[in-house]
């Protein structure tokens, strides 16, 4: 067990960068650490001989999702969040829950027969995956296409804002407690917002 040095290296990188993604103070470095986590998962897929899934993972996650997240962070970044304090008690409870999950599922696995299961050397080819996806799973494929289209349209509708409405909202906010934003930063935000919406 645990004889593969590549596997150990990739798992250390993946788990460490997952922790950094959640705990690093600066949000944008957290996003980069998340990208490294997702790349580590892609490396796992390569180790499992699922190269097409690995390629898909890199294209979709590192190429699209992380870039989208970084744009959103740039759009909404504010210094005040760095002081967002979770509180020690909350943190301890979260760690206890996480360790309980590891302990419970680990105990279940240790008692099961999964340790004796052997991975087979036979892996499906790209042709097989493509055939299965476009024949047997074609209804799911079509439903997935509609789901993606609907979510993209929904995201655009949510993020879109009419010019007048935004100004109205701003005036409302300016009178409120949090009216600390400068008027100059608002102009740049409109252009950024359109980019982040995609």
């Amino acid at each position, binding site marked *: 067990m645990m004889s593969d040095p590549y596997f150990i290296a990739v798992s250390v990188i*993946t788990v460490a960068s997952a922790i950094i993604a959640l705990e690093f103070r600066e949000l944008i470095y957290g996003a980069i650490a998340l990208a490294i*986590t997702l790349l580590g*998962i892609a490396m796992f897929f390569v180790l499992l001989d699922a190269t097409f899934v690995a390629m898909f993972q890199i294209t979709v996650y590192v190429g699209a999702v992380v870039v989208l*997240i970084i744009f959103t962070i740039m759009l909404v970044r504010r210094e005040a969040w760095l002081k967002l304090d979770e509180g020690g008690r909350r943190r301890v409870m979260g760690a206890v829950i996480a360790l309980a999950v590891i302990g419970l599922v680990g105990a279940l696995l240790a008692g099961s027969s999964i340790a004796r299961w052997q991975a087979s050397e036979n892996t*499906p080819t790209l042709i097989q995956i493509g055939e299965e996806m476009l024949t047997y799973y074609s209804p*799911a494929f079509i439903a997935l296409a509609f789901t993606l289209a609907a979510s993209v349209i929904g995201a655009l509708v949510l993020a879109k804002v009419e010019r007048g409405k935004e100004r109205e909202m701003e005036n409302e906010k300016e009178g409120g407690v949090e009216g600390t934003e400068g008027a100059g930063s608002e102009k740049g935000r409109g252009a950024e917002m359109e980019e982040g919406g995609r």
Partner: protein
Amino acid sequence: MAEILDYTIVSIILLAIGIYGLTVKRNFIRMLFAVEIIINAANLNLVAFSRLMPVPNSTGQTFALFSIAIAAAEVAVGLALIIVAYRIYRNIDIKGLKRLSG
């Protein structure tokens, strides 16, 4: 070649990290990170268990592909929600979003 159990252990650790992030963090974007980590742990399991078949079987990898695509859609909607919440509340602290609950 590492065993299936090793991949499952890594997947459990990632799941625990994700649950920790969801319970502790108050920042909306951080919670999205945690969700991403959990989804990836699940995908890792799907692909690892598809290796158990003695005959080459592509079902696990196909499911992982579908799962990745659905996760991308979820991220798009989640980020749009963050932008809307930020525009209304000027904050992404989860505590400030209580008005959403009506």
